[in-house]
């Protein structure tokens, strides 16, 4: 009965990972993602507190050419399986920090939440958009990153483990993408 899956109540086993080794290996990542995984660059995602399974799979997608990015593609190509597991474990263990918020107006918040419900964001990303397993924590991501990724999912150019987000983005108008991204990035801190 497996359908394209997104999340689960049962935790998949964490791969054998060394958090301390992950901290050392993350040195090279800090310039863009921040020293403890909280990014100050609007188009670069924060990794702190992301689900380890999500982070590990994303590194594999970059390495295998299924997700493409001028910076990440060559970096991921140099990583071993153990590197990926260690990095994922270390970033997952860092406390998530939300970026500075632009407060939403009441109508913006209402529209955003309604769209989020209509487009089923909470079904996989969680009631507080805190993420679980395949589905990243959205609550710490910047509005620019969220907007660009949603546009790429809609265009079919953002790597997608099992197609769930590509399918989900197809019926989003660009106006809805902007509204949803603004809502997520403006929602209260996790």
């Amino acid at each position, binding site marked *: *009965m497996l*359908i394209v899956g997104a999340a689960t109540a*049962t935790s998949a086993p964490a791969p054998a990972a060394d958090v301390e080794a992950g901290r050392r290996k993350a040195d090279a990542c800090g310039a863009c993602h921040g020293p403890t995984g909280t990014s100050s660059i609007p188009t670069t995602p924060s990794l702190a507190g992301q689900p380890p399974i999500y982070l590990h*799979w994303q590194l594999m997608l970059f390495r295998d050419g299924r997700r493409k990015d001028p910076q990440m593609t060559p970096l991921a190509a140099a990583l071993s399986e153990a590197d990926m*597991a260690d990095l994922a474990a270390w970033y997952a263990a860092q406390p998530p920090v939300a970026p500075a918020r632009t407060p939403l107006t009441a109508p913006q918040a209402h529209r955003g939440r309604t769209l989020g419900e*209509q487009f089923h964001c909470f079904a996989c990303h969680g009631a507080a958009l805190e993420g679980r397993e395949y589905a990243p924590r959205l609550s710490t991501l910047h509005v620019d990153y969220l907007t660009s990724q949603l546009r790429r999912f809609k265009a079919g150019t953002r790597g997608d483990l*099992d197609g*769930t987000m590509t*399918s989900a983005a197809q019926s989003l*108008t660009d106006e809805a993408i902007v509204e949803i991204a603004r809502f997520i990035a403006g929602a209260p801190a996790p």
Partner: protein
Amino acid sequence: MRHTPVLLTAALTLAAISSGLVPALGQQPPAPPSWKQGQPSELADSALSPHAQPPAPKAAAEIPVDKIKVPAGFKVSLWASGINNARVMTWGDKGTLFVSSRVAGNVYAVIDKGGTREVKTIAKGLNLPNGVAFRDGTLYVAEIHRITRMDGIEDKLDSPPPMTVVYDTLPKDAPHGWKYLAFGPDGKLYFNIGAPCNICLPPDTHANISRVNSDGTGFEYFAHGVRNSVGFDWHPVTKELYFATHARDWLGEDVPNDRLDHAPRKGLHFGFPFCHQGDIPDPEFGKGRSCGEFAAPLLKTGPHVAGNGVQFYTGSMFPPEYKHRMFLAQRGSWNRTQKSGFRVMMVTLRPGDVPKYEVFAEGWMQGDGFWGRPVYTQQMKDGSLLISDDYAGAIYRVAYQR
């Protein structure tokens, strides 16, 4: 979003327009992710959802092979490990075992070196490449959107040949878009095109088993009303098709059963989405239809068990009663509070009677949890049986000791 009932669509559209959300008339509300689709509103807070695939295989030392129980006289060993998301297995002419994956996007070659096995990744970055089949020196690979071939692959495992397109006039839907692929007794390539949903009235192009000549010509539908079959085989004597099908979710803990079906000829309809397990009309799509219109299942195999690999045993290592028995690997449930499946069943056909249905191997499920998911089988030349486990990234070998 093709299949939301008209009234619901209208209501949601009106609500959206009145709240100023929808910029243009005719905008359809989006479908939920397919695993959640068809979930009744009273179960909206259900904790059940598909089990995530781990990003890495288990190390050999972490795989508790001794937990796998088989009938007396049989012995299970760990044959290969470290094969991320290992799924379908097919033999090359020269003894290479080709192994597919699903979300990992890889195809592997496993070379038996006596006591050990060497694993090479021969293709990566593919679009859920679940299907692999081999004939005359060529490996055929089925992804969601295409079937390709790698000629002379067994002599080029370290520098694999390009993947040449055989057939790509296929839907691109991700839900149930991954394929099983096998050569039929007629030399044609058979594969599934699953329903692009949990439950919906699928387009005419979906919910079937199809076939095409190995050169990509002569596409045709073989079986209809098949929600998603990712495992089938042909009887060694009658040459007729038998296949497993995953049934819909969110209809209940104990219904509907997954099914094992028999398609002795082309053109039969197996009921989806109108009728489930041969006797339960779908609450929405079954209205005005009768289960009697459709081919009944050969066997109800249990609710939510996720029957994948189907294979007739043709070897001589196992006791004589195993000849032409079917093995059915069940990957295990997610849409059920008490887990089911996570085992390999055996099915003995009995003319004029319901097949005999027994457990062959179990133990991947322990209490409320599970540590592996048996997903396909493949017979070895000596008559022993390989079982792949996509969750642990491993292949087990079951042998019989006289």
